């Protein structure tokens, strides 16, 4: 009987592994972010917010995710599932981003982009990673903004740098057309 179950489990395990491999990170603005900006949960805009009494930008972070994770448009908040392990100089939650330039209009498209690259210094990643989640770190709930994917990377005892695109209506990191 034991042998039968062992025989049965081999294809089941292989199928499960194959199914798990279907998970992947997807580049997307999260659906929740679209709702949350209408609710006023986010301020990516520096100090020029006359509509609110709290007139400072929220703090945002980028967290890195293993290539086997499944971050994407469905994310609502920062999620530790699939994040790099807090080893090798990676700090859980990721690194802060600098928002030195408030959102602006390029013709009819609003856009905002962090004003500096983000670097994980002297990193040894716990595995291959291919995605970064941008989220609001000012609120305890840590609302998700967007997932950005790139070719899978493994870093050993060195820096990993993520440089932002040109901040305009065509390539800005976050755009609303």
């Amino acid at each position, binding site marked *: 009987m034991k042998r039968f179950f062992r025989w049965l489990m081999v294809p089941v395990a292989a199928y499960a592994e194959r199914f798990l491999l279907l998970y992947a990170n997807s580049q997307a603005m999260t659906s929740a972010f679209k709702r949350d900006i209408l609710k006023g949960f986010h301020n990516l805009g520096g100090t020029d917010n006359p509509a609110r009494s709290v007139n400072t930008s929220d703090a945002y972070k980028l967290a890195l995710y293993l290539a086997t994770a499944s971050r994407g448009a469905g994310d609502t908040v920062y999620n530790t599932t699939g994040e790099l392990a807090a080893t090798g100089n990676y700090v859980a939650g990721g690194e802060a981003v600098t928002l030195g330039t408030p959102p602006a209009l390029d013709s009819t498209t609003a856009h905002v982009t962090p004003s500096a690259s983000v670097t994980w210094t002297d990193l040894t990643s716990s595995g291959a990673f291919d995605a970064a989640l941008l989220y609001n770190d000012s609120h305890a709930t840590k609302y998700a903004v967007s997932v950005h994917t790139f*070719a899978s990377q493994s870093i050993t005892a060195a820096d990993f740098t993520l440089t932002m695109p040109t901040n305009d209506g065509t390539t800005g990191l976050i755009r609303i057309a």
Partner: protein
Amino acid sequence: MAEILTVKLKRNGWPEDEAPVMIDESLLAYTEGGFEDDNEITKWREWHLDGKIVKRAAHVTLKKNVAAEAVAAMFGK
């Protein structure tokens, strides 16, 4: 003049433990490369010792990003 680099090496008897050690760069084989597609420009640098990567850095520049379409509906539609 060769630099002293911090790399990760497996210590004898501790196969799962990669300890950071300082090593003269001239003892390592160095390769670099990169690629560009619609999504990113990526450059990487690797240092090898005895065929094994002991140090690897990468620089990713994002190109293609996320956008949402804003819609204002007409009344009565």
